């Protein structure tokens, strides 16, 4: 029997198999829902960005132009920064769920603002997201397990096993083809909704093809595992239990263990410590001699040494200088925090090699630009923008440039 004939025969068998057809429909339905809800979420995020950008601009113009000095203008002008979802984000929302992708920042110390996060309703966040990446990484293997585990055991218990094996030249290739046809059906049912979603969202063909390749490779991995365990001479229920055991090991135990190990290996400063350090520096400055603020400030900005604190109460220049010094004080902690996250993410990438579900999720998040690196890249863009703000205001605050409300036109724009 040729390969094609054998595959055809299996396909015919399988399509008459009611349980299998049900499974294909379940996969199709679940994948479609995952893709649809991903697209809806991305849509909502885009709308929210568009709405906020508009009202943010109006609010800023109004605030800035109604002030009469640089200090107050800087104090009351907020700037929206955001990280727009990529056109593949619908498939893997990843870090966008736990980390901020929008901030409204101003000229005050940045360390006090950049960790602000709006988790939405925590009750809803807890349930978690059923996005395509989650579906493929965790649910799809289970479905493959349900479909493939009794390939041989069911024939055995029906008493057809020996007959079936005797009817073909190579019985091993029989099981291989049977597994291949079944899992191919499942994988195709999963990839069709993804492709549709990609077309609707304008995902590049290359990204889509890479994602599909990952999904297929992942499906093949699980097909091999299932076929291997299914070939044991045990009853179907025991095979099923063992396969589910492997699934729990790879999807839960190894990832959770690795996470704890990584956190132990790479300690990072607690977020609260960064905030506290920065806050204390800013709050203490009110009572310290002005020079305690201005000396470190001039060390960073020698170009403004010409600025003279007049020594009479509150002065905006001094105020913003100690905001900056607050950031400077927390700088090393903040650097450690960032580097720690980079290192943790690198190790997570390594450990994920031992846990295919985590590996697949990470790959899809990487394609969708929703991984830790994208979060850090966005954070860097916010930092850069904040320093542009400082560059804009400092000539006014420290260099006696006269305030002009029309300068609202020259305010730096955040480029996403």
């Amino acid at each position, binding site marked *: 029997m040729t390969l094609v004939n054998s595959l055809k025969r299996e396909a015919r068998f399988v399509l008459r198999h*009611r*349980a299998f057809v049900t499974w294909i429909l379940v996969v199709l339905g*679940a994948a479609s829902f995952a893709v649809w809800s991903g697209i809806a979420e991305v849509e909502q995020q885009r709308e929210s960005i568009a709405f906020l950008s508009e009202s943010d601009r109006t609010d800023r113009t109004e605030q800035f132009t109604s002030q009469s000095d640089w200090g107050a203008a800087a104090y*009351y002008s907020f700037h929206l920064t955001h990280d727009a979802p990529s056109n593949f984000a619908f498939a893997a929302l990843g870090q966008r769920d*736990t980390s901020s992708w929008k901030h409204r920042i101003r000229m005050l110390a940045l360390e006090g603002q950049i960790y602000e996060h709006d988790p*939405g309703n925590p009750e809803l966040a807890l349930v978690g997201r059923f996005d395509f990446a989650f579906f493929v990484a965790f649910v799809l293997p289970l479905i493959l397990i349900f479909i493939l585990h009794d390939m041989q055991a069911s024939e055995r218990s029906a008493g057809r096993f020996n007959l079936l094996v005797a009817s073909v030249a190579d019985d091993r290739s029989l099981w291989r083809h049977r597994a291949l046809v079944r899992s191919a059906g499942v994988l195709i049912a999963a990839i069709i909704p993804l492709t549709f979603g990609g077309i609707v969202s304008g995902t590049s063909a290359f990204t889509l093809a890479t994602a599909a390749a990952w999904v297929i490779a992942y499906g093949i991995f699980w097909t091999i595992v299932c076929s291997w365990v299914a070939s044991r001479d045990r009853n179907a229920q025991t095979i099923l239990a063992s396969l589910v055991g492997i699934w729990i090991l790879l999807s839960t135990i190894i990832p959770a263990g690795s996470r704890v190990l990584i956190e132990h290996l790479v300690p990072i400063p607690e*977020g609260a410590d960064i905030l506290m350090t920065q806050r204390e520096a800013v709050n203490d400055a009110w009572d310290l001699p002005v020079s305690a603020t201005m000396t470190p400030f001039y060390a960073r900005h020698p170009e403004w040494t010409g600025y003279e604190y007049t020594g009479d109460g509150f002065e905006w220049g001094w105020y913003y200088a100690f905001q900056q010094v607050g950031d400077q004080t927390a700088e090393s902690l903040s650097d450690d925090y960032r580097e720690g996250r980079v290192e943790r993410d690198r190790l997570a990438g390594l450990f994920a090699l031992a846990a295919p579900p985590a590996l697949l999720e990470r790959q899809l998040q990487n394609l969708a630009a929703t991984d830790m690196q994208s979060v850090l890249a966005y954070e860097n863009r916010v930092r850069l923008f904040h320093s542009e703000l400082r560059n804009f205001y400092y000539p006014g605050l420290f260099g006696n440039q006269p305030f002009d409300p029309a300068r609202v036109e020259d305010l730096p724009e955040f480029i996403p």
Partner: protein
Amino acid sequence: MTAVLSIAAAEWRYWRRSRLALVVVALFVLTLAFVSVLTNMRVAADAEARAHHQEESEETFLSQPDRHPHRMVHYGHYVFRTPTPLATFDPGLDSVTGQAMFLEGHRQNSATFSSSVSSADLGGLSWLTPAVIYQVFAPLLIVILGYGAIVREREARTLAPLLAQGTSAGALISGKLLALFSFALLLVVPLAVTALRSTSDGESASVAASLVALYLLYLCVWIGLTVLVSTVLQKRTTVLATLAACWLTVTLALPAIAVNATSRAEPLAGKIETELTMLNEVRDLGDGHDVDDSVYDALQASLLEEEGVERVEDLDVNIRGVLAGRSEAELTETLNEYAERRMQAESRQARVLNRIGWLTPTLALGAASRAIVGTDLEHYHRFLRQAEALRIEFVQGLNRVHAEELSYTADINRNRDEASSRRARVDASNWEVLETFEYEPAPASERLARASSSLQMLIAWLIALAASLSWAGMRLKP
């Protein structure tokens, strides 16, 4: 009755012989033990860090030197939430919401730094907690163990002789149910131990017992469903496919769909969005730092009139402190209005979500479990309210000190020179206005009452399943 018992015993023998029960129990116990250890470690580490920080933060505040009182308003204070004893079993919202909050004058901060932000990302299931193991994995194991219960006898053609020998269909089904129920009892043992231990950490016995009963009830729903499908459908593969699809839908898909539907039906404005309007409203209230702000003219005039003096310098109190207190009170009123509105919107969403519990027992159980343990949305709000109460108390305490202990003249001259700045300070003993923060969860009765609607859903499920089972029993044919 003996027939029921012997059928249950026979089922156990089958599990033992095929080593099925062994594999399943080993799997469950190992996963549960592993996840319990990890969750315990995390919660314990969090609790220690919190206790340590709480103490440190309070000490730092109290040990501040003599200062201008308003500096201390800005200096602020950190509060941390301590978990309830059973949070090691079900950390609930604790893992999503921040654990710490910075309290200061003039603003309400949000809780910051949940642990999920900085940890290594290894996929959606690396965050499992013991509670989720019971909610999601235990049903799967019951399905694996029980899907063959009746259909196996049918396929092996042992069903006909069994029924012919006088075993009633009811006894057969009851026997299988009993076998699975005894297995569920076994699964609940680790939870019972955890619950028992929590009572020695100060958890009430009624809470601990209800939690165990609740999870047992939930597992019974799954047992009923498993045996029902195994009775009604004719082929083993279809039984498994149906049950597995039910499991996927009920534990994973429906809760996610419910969240999606809820956020559409009851949309919640984002934080930045709300702050845009709030900040505008707050700006109109006037700035309590600025005595000359025209908003305060009336207050100033009435104070002067009350004491019958001409100039603010002659008042008994420091007008700057009075204004600071007044503006803080007004500001807090506005902030609380927004905070209340936000919390109510969140609770509304939670209620809509919980109503979908009628469709999926997993959602109902999750809500009840968090309510009983004390890690649900209401408890999170409770923390926010308690923290706010502490904030306004110490800020207004400091403003009173500002008004009564510091003379107006010394206050306005504070920036003249070093000596004047010293005169504009008050004694550090005044910092005692800060009370010790101890987060207090709701009393047991309140928590149990909140779980009651979810309990009704589970019971309704159980009744429906029992009715269907007795119907299926009557129609059972080989």
